[in-house]
Structures are given as C-alpha cells and as structure tokens.
C-alpha cells in the first residue's frame, strides 16, 4: 500500500533517513522499531506527506505522495499520535467529528458513525461530551483512534500510540487495538520503541538504526536470525522482569 523508493530525508544537512526502499503489505500490520533518533517517526511522516523526501519518492496506492496529492491521501489514511494529539478546544465528540463536519457530512451520518466507533474502540458514550483534559490517558488514545478511523480510511498510521500510558492501561489497549486491526483488516504502520509491543502487533517488523533498515522480516526472525550484532544487542536490551531469588 505504501511504497518508498530510495527516499532520503536530511535535516540541517545531516541525513536523518535513507535512502530507504520499503513496501508495506496491504491489510497487514508493519511495525517500525528502533532506538531514539533512528528515523522511524520521520519515515512515518514521509508516508502522508507531512514532510517531503529530499531524494527518492514515496507512493501511496501507486500514486506519488507530493504536496499536491498529500491532502487527498490523508483523507484515506488515519493518523494517531502519542496521547491522541487531541485538540483541547473540542470535546471528544468534536475531535472525532471535526473532519467529517469540515467535509459537510449530514449530522445524522456523523452521529451514527461516532456511535459505531465508540463501540469499536470501547469508549463510553457518556464521555463523548468531555473535553480532552477531563479524559484519562487511555480514553484520550481511544478518541484519537476514533478520530483516525472516522472516514473509514484504507490505512492507519500510529506514532508511539501507547507511549504515555501506564502498564495496565497499556496492556488493555494493546489487546483492543490488535483486535481492531484484525477486525478491520486495515493496512497498519505502527511506530514503537518497545520490542514486546512490536512483536505483539506485527505481521512484519522493520528495525531501523541511524536512518537505515537493519532488519526487515517476521518478528521471530529478530530472535532467531539476527542480521547483525546490533539486532542481537537491541533484542537483549529489552529485558523482562527479573525475579529476586527466593530466600
């Protein structure tokens, strides 16, 4: 669905990403993972034209992503940021409905779509009229997801969607999100720095380091067929809880 062809992005003369060539399979979940500054968020922003590549090209559904086509493409792609990226001046309902209202959907259609999404995202209907400050972190994330899904997009991009949540809420949302991805069969590109989370969601994992792809494959490959010593170090750095030995 998304396709990068030798895409390169430089910031202040320094190459931040690329050249990268990568295609994301339709209907599958691709997870971009890597240490801070590896370029995973930059890659995500290239996909919907928030930034343009300095060299190479980006395609969505075979069409090039340029400043001229970016808006049309964004309407077909949902985008979820850490903490939801919600607008504080709008209620949960206002945030979800913003784009549909701008596109002049009939009010009844908007309402029924919000109802569907609230059920899907397990968001309490009575909280729809609250403003973001009065929602919990998990609830804000659910609203962000509803907003991204409002127009029933072909693809969903998520940038560290669960980064700001405490472990219990995070686990619950991970379950719900994976359920939603599987139900909707969307093309999903998710950015995270947590290997456990990546393995939980991914049909395919892309590990990035210093703006380049180090390994690209099934989650199990990272453990069993590491491409280079960095992959092994990265996998081992994600440690699980170490129980103190029983006295």
């Amino acid at each position: 669905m998304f396709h990068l062809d030798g895409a390169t992005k430089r910031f202040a003369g320094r190459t931040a990403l690329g050249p990268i060539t990568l295609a994301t399979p339709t209907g599958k979940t691709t997870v971009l993972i890597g240490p801070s500054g590896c370029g995973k968020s930059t890659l995500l922003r290239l996909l919907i034209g928030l930034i343009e590549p300095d060299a190479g090209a980006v395609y969505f559904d075979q069409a090039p992503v340029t400043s001229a086509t970016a808006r049309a493409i964004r309407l077909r792609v949902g985008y979820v940021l850490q903490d939801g990226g919600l607008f504080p001046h709008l209620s949960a309902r206002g945030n979800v409905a913003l784009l549909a209202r701008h596109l002049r959907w009939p009010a009844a259609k908007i309402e029924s779509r919000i109802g569907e999404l609230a059920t899907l995202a397990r968001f309490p209907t009575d909280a729809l009229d609250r403003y973001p400050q009065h929602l919990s972190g998990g609830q804000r994330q659910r609203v962000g997801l509803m907003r991204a899904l409002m127009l029933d997009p072909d693809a969903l991009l998520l940038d560290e969607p669960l980064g700001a949540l405490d472990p219990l809420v995070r686990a619950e949302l991970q379950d719900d999100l994976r359920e939603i991805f599987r139900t909707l069969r969307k093309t999903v590109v998710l950015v995270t720095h947590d290997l456990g989370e990546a393995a939980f969601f991914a049909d395919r994992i892309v590990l990035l380091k210093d703006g380049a792809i180090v390994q690209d494959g099934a989650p199990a490959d990272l453990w069993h067929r590491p491409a280079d010593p960095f992959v092994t170090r990265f996998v081992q750095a994600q440690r699980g809880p170490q129980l103190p030995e029983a006295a």
Partner: protein
Amino acid sequence: MSRTSIFAILLIGGCSERPVEKPTVVIGAKKFTESYLLAEMGASLCRQAGANAESKDLGSTPTLWLALTQGDIDAYPEYTGTITRQILKDNPTDLDAALAAHGVRMSKPFGFRNNYALGMRKDVAASRNISKISDLRNHADLRCGFIPEFRDRPDGWPGLKRVYGLPQENVREMNHTLAYAAVVDKSLDLTEIYTTDGEIVQHDLLVLRDDLDFFPAYQAIWLYRADLERRLPSAVAQLRRMEGRIGEPDMQAMNTDVQFRDETVNGVSAAFLASKGIDAVPTVDPSLAERVGSTTSEHLQLVIPSLLAAMLVAIPLGILASNRMRLGQTVLATTGVLQTIPSLALLLFLMPLTKWLFGSGIGAPTAIAALFLYSLLPIVRNTYTGLTGIAPALRESAEALGLTRWAILWRVELPLAAPTILAGVKTAAVINIGTATLGGFIGAGGYGRPILRGIDKSDIPMMLEGAIPAALMAVLAEAAFGAVERWIGRRRG
C-alpha cells in the same frame, strides 16, 4: 447640506430634532477659557443669523488653521500676533491679502489685546528686585515653566532669550494651568502668561514689563472662511458685531468668572452679550445627567467603531505575521511605532487624510482613525503570540487529519489562539477608552471634553465629570471581556 453634517447625522443616528434645511456654521475654539468664551459668543451670534451653529474644541493653532483652511470649521477666534508669527511666519504689509490667498478673511479687532508676557509672584520679584524683563539678565537661577508652544516658537522663549540676552537654562515644558499653580506654590519662579488671564488677578501676580517691546500685539479677531461671506453673509455680519466691543477688563473679568467663580462658559458669554445689548441665541447649559449622557454616547461612538475596525484589520495582520516571519517582524515593528506617536501629532497628520476620505477633518472620523491606529498593536501582537504559541504537535495533528490550510486556521488555530487574541482585544479596549479622551482635542466630544476644559480652569469636579465615567467604562469593559473569557474557559473545562 454639507458632507460634515450628513456624517454628523449618521453618527448621531435617530436624533433628528435639528431641522436639516438650516445652514450649518461651525466655530472652532482653542483649548483655553478665553477661546471657549469667544467661540461660544460666535456660535450664539450665528444662531441669531438663523444658522445651526455649534462650537468645537480643537486644541492648538495648527489644528485650527488646518481645519479652517480645509473647511471643517467656518471661523475661529485668533490673535494677530499668532497669525504673523506662527501661521504665516511672515509680517506682510497687507495682512488681508496674505490671508485671502488662503481663502481666509479677518475681522476688525474685538478691542482687547491678549499679549504674551512673563509673570511671577510679586514677593519673589520684589525680593530679587525684578520689575521688567531686562531685569531677568542677572538671575540665571530662575526656574522657568512654559507651554511647549511658547518654549519652541521663535516669537516665544527662544526669541525673547536672544533679544534680551537672558541666561536662564532651567526651562521646563508644562501645561499653562499647572505652570500657574507651580508659580503660586513657589516650585517655579517664572512662567509665560496671557495678559487677559484670570489667574493674574486671582493670584495677584506681577506682569513683567516688556521694556524692549519684544512681544507683538496680540489683537483678538475672527478668522473666517471667505466662502462664509458668500454662503451666509448674515452670519459674518453677526460675528462682526463683536468688533470693538470687548475691552481688556471685560475679557479678564469673563476669564476670571469662568475659571474661579464656577460659572459656565455659556452663561458668562450670554451675560456679556446681553450686557452689551447684543442679541444672540446662547447655547443652553445642559444638566449634569444630560452632559454625562451625551459625552458617554459620544465616547462610545469613538470607542466601538475604532475597536471593531482595529479587530477587522489587526487579527488578519496578526495571522499574516505569524505565517511569514520576516513580514511579521515588520508588521509588529510598524504597529509598535504607531503607538509612540503623540496623539496631537497623529491627529494633525490624520486631518487631511480624513478630510479626503470622509469629507471632514475634525470630529469623530479623525478621532476614530487615531484610536484605530492605537488599537492595532495589542491585537496584532496577541494574535501573533497566540498563533505562534500553538504546540507544533497540534498543528501537525490537524495537518495529518487532511484539513485544508484554511480549515486548520479556522477550526483549529484560531480557536486555540482565541483566549490570547481576546486578551489583546481587551487590552486594546481599555487603552482605547482612555485614549478616546483625545476626542476633546479634535471636536469629537466624549469624556475628553470635560477633562480638557476642567484642566484648563483647574476645575476638579469638571475633570471628574469626564474622568470618573471614563474609568467606569474601562472597568465595565474589563469585566465584560473577563466574563467572555471565563465563558470560553468553562466550555473547555
């Protein structure tokens, strides 16, 4: 009917008891009691000629001369010395011809002279053995306070200093009335005075003899537009009934009555005309409630249009500035510079412009134009700050959603910046309400009129008549905007 009166009627709105078919005559007045009195006499005489007449407070000589020559006023009382020294800056043999070149005519003198002179406390003068201006040469330590006009004009202090060889360097710029007060309480030694000032008698001051005849004769006369003679000859004839009828003691007594006996300009001028057997239709003194009502309405008619116009221009300017950094700096710097222009200078600069745009260089349009310019800065700056202060993540979130540039501005950025923009409008409103007192300089009325007239005669109650409602209006505006802010805040939880 002139464009001025059409505008006035539009502004006043429904207040239509004035028959529109009457010709209109506007008399200008400078901002001191004597000028108010003479202008009021002129207005009541023009009414006697069947005209709709009013007098307008217009501040200083340059403003009045500009208003007269561009046709905003028909006549105003002036002094011959001021015409040659300050207006024409020339002493032509044929003064009438020189004025005619500007489309202006001059009446014969009213009879009194109001010369510039220097005055001091009698006891201070006696202790230093001073009785005439040349005696000042030996007292370099004297503290002087002059009005800006006198301090800077060649026929004022600079000329006097040169001709007499005066050594004083301690010269402060002060309001005329305040300078008198300072001389009386001995914080100043010397000030300029006018020979008809009521204060001379009131404070028993010494007028120093001009032993080198430096000061020219300041004969009081009418300056009027040549076209008034054609348009309404009877009005000119009425105005000229003042020629030769007002002596120096008369004028001094009238000034004293207004400044120190708590009598009104309208009352004193009516009584004087009656005492001389000159029939006229004096302006009726309105009651306190009527006065406050009309100054409030005038004040609002300055504040509201100027604030609305400033919002319409400043918010888009702020948006533009926030999008283009270099342009933004220019816009902010320009509106900042506007803020530093003194109000009198700005008014004088705007008069030809508003004359051209609205057909009148005095009154509400000019005051509104000045207030509009003064209101820009706080609104532009806060719009700019509000928009540039939005978290980049939110802006990106809006962009990623697929909203157009305009939709992002309208649905996300402006609502997010709204509290800051509103705070800017509130600041502008409060400043505007205070600054709108400049209407008193330019015949636009409002609270500035009683404040300026009150300052002129050190009449605290009269000043308060303008100052208290102005303060109340500012407090109310602050509270109203505060309520809107809280309402917005509550909506956002």
